[in-house]
């Protein structure tokens, strides 16, 4: 859309006007080849009511299917016939973000400025820089927001602050950035006083927040789990196949649920603890298994269960760090350097032990 406006429509014979005189395409900064369109502003209408298609879209997104298709067109949207004095809310062009915003504003007239975050939610996009100062400043110009509103104030989601510098935006666009609450659903309350309570400013990660992640995580590991399970089963190890599946599922399903109750702040050690619980039945099954096996060999196989399952579960648990809203890069890096070698040694040890035990079994011990 913005390109349409920038394409030269004048016949070639007409000498081009100086760029700064152009009503449409004004060059941005020095050394910046892109141009910004000061176009007649198109504001698409939207509503605060979500329909069935929206809910279906959210459900599909939460299952991790076609995540790249959850984009809406960036630009300006009008909610409930806004006036030039209505609030401007800024959001990402991810359907879940956009829908969270508009559905939080029933009976509020507002302009919604949707940034092009490549279909990624506000916080992730801010971390990546796509929900950022540059995109915001450019989108203000490209959308013609200046001509739509009389005031110069934008309300951004607080989590957008990881990508947006409020004072930079003011300097470059003249618009004041106001950070609203973390969650869109707190907006009605926030708008009463224009002040967020400490509670509105904090990210949470309660049981509901964690449960909603499970389908995505589960479907993400589904195919590798099925392949690993099938291969191990085909190799004639139904018990090992089951153990592998349980170890991964434990990390993906039980771990998010039990997260705050597993002691230790480190994710890898939380994973080891969780697995110690999950591996018990498997180790027990080895200890009491039927057949002419010596007690030492039984203990050996029980050890294989613990070592192999722990390393797998702990690794899966460590990978959950990115899904939480509180782990720092420094901390995760420390965990990787400390525990990934331990996991590798445990898995390697389990394989060596299993081979040795099979060898002993062949010798009739």
């Amino acid at each position: 859309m913005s390109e349409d406006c920038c394409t030269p429509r004048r016949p070639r014979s007409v000498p081009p006007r100086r760029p700064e005189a152009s009503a449409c395409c004004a060059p941005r900064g020095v050394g910046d080849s892109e141009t910004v369109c000061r176009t007649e502003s198109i504001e698409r209408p939207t509503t605060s009511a979500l329909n069935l298609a929206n809910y279906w879209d959210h459900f599909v997104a939460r299952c991790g299917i076609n995540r790249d298709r959850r984009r809406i067109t960036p630009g300006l949207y009008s909610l409930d016939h806004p006036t030039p004095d209505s609030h401007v809310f800024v959001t990402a062009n991810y359907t879940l973000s956009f829908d969270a915003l508009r559905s939080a504003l029933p009976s509020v007239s507002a302009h919604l400025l949707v940034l092009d975050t490549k279909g990624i939610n506000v916080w992730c996009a801010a971390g990546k820089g796509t929900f950022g100062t540059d995109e915001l400043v450019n989108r203000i110009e490209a959308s013609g927001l200046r001509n739509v509103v009389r005031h110069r104030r934008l309300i951004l989601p607080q989590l957008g602050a990881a990508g947006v510098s409020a004072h930079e935006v003011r300097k470059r666009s003249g618009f004041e950035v106001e950070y609203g609450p973390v969650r869109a659903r707190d907006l009605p309350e926030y708008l009463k006083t224009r002040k967020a309570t400490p509670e509105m400013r904090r990210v949470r990660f309660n049981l509901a927040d964690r449960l909603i992640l499970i389908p995505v995580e589960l479907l993400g590991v589904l195919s590798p789990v099925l392949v690993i399970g099938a291969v191990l089963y085909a190799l004639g190890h139904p018990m090992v196949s089951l153990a592998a599946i349980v170890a991964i599922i434990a990390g993906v399903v039980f771990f998010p649920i039990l997260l705050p109750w597993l002691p230790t702040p480190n994710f890898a050690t939380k994973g080891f603890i969780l697995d110690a619980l999950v591996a018990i039945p498997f180790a027990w099954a080895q200890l009491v298994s039927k057949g002419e096996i010596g007690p030492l060999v039984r203990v050996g196989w029980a050890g294989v269960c613990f070592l192999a399952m722990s390393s797998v579960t702990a690794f899966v648990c460590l990978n959950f760090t990115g899904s939480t809203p509180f782990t720092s890069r420094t901390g995760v890096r420390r965990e990787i350097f400390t525990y990934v070698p331990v996991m590798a040694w445990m898995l390697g040890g389990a394989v060596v032990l299993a081979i040795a035990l099979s060898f002993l079994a062949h010798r009739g011990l």
Partner: protein
Amino acid sequence: MLNAYKSNTLSYDPELCSNCGMCSIVCPHSVFAPDDDVAKLVRAEACMECGACQLNCPAGAITVESGVGCAAAMIGAALTGNKEATCGGSESVCCPGGADDCK
């Protein structure tokens, strides 16, 4: 190592603080709190290095090496030879949530 998350790269120089209050507003973990003269660093260990405070501090009083605290992204970056671990994007090997559930 009992707690990998106890320390981080956040550093704050109260001498430079202009007490605009932005850090307390943008921090999702209440690491900073407003006070009479300058902002107070009250929960440094809760910092997740998102970088919002540094980006929104007009006085330049805060520095933090921001990045994604995501093991999957970091391991993925290490395996693919990328220098910087990021989340999001269709090409990403990152979070199973496709950068939707990760921060």
